[in-house]
């Protein structure tokens, strides 16, 4: 996920200072892996350099003064373009798993256990997400759904690979 585009998107609703942006980002998109302050400020500096945001005054408070940033017209065009562009489909972790399966077969270890262990771990994660969905709000449910569908796709691949292990073993050992 592009942090720069996400911060730009958050600025569309109005000017904010860095701390406020970080809080909004963590709340909506990254509760498990909060952004570092340094990442927020370096991203804002880059956006400023590229003319996608501008400084919009300084907010005085108890602590140090805080600069507010606003999205520019170029920034709005940029975010529109980003939102309209599809993400390139990526292969996630199948590559790693495929490598493990092939290496296991090559070394004569057998890959069924490896696949079963991975399958159990995937299902455990799906349980956790399903439980989280039940108690969460709609935004949380949508995020969990996305993860669940990806895990489900991985699991289908694991099951199909398990069903093809005999054939795969023969081919790998040729």
């Amino acid at each position: 996920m592009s942090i720069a585009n996400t911060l730009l998107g958050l600025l569309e609703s109005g000017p904010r200072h860095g701390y406020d942006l970080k809080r909004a980002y963590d709340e909506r998109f990254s509760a498990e892996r909060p952004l570092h302050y340094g990442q927020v400020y370096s991203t804002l500096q880059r956006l400023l350099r590229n003319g996608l945001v501008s400084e919009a005054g300084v907010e005085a408070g108890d602590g140090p003064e805080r600069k507010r940033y606003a999205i520019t017209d170029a920034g709005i065009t940029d975010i529109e373009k980003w939102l309209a562009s599809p993400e390139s489909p990526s292969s996630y972790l199948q590559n790693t798993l495929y490598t493990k399966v092939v290496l296991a077969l090559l070394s004569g270890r057998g890959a069924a256990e490896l696949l079963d262990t991975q399958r159990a771990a995937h299902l455990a994660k799906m349980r956790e997400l399903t439980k989280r969905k039940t108690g969460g709000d709609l935004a949380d449910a949508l995020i969990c759904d996305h993860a669940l569908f990806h895990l489900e796709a991985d699991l289908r691949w694991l099951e199909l690979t398990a069903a093809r292990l005999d054939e795969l073993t023969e081919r790998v050992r040729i």
Partner: protein
Amino acid sequence: MTGATETVLEAVELHKSFGETTALHGASVTVRAGEVLAVLGPSGSGKSTLLHCMAGILLPDAGTVSYRGIDLAALAGHRRSALRRDEFGFVFQFGQLVPELSCVENVALPLRLAGQRRKAAERIAREWLARLDVDTVAGKRPGEVSGGQGQRVAVARAMVTRPKVVFADEPTGALDSLNSERVLELLVAAARDTNAAVVLVTHETRVAAFSDRDITVRDGKVRQTEFSR
């Protein structure tokens, strides 16, 4: 799970064949009180046969199924039927509701068969329909309601006798994702409220994710996994 670990149902070394085809080949399963157990496996692996044997619908060729220590095969047919009616609930993929009866009459049916008077049975049935969010279809026939509503009615009927074990065979197999999720949420919540165990047969991992524990049936045998909620 509610913390209870009492074994409510136990299948040991089940064998079952249909002519030349072996469906179960030494399958063993334990179901604990109040747990949701997913039974996974590819098509033709024997998972539905396992469910039918565990529920006393089919008798295995060899091996035993005990419900709270009672050997199902040792019971006379009518006693086994009564046990299924009073202690077990069933939800299938489709076709389980009586088309000539209204939804409330369908839900009340197990209570009527157990000897309850119509008024009392239908009052309880309406409570279950409300709990499953389908009280508005009480007077309609199954053919007049949507697939999702029909499955919720089926869940209400399965739960109306407050069974100790609910057997659900691909209960959301014919539903879209959203309806499937809602039906599963309601089924699991109702089971947890009444401390009923659920044996959930499915080939979909998203459905299995609603369980506390899962087993996989492959070539008529059971593989246990120990990833608990």
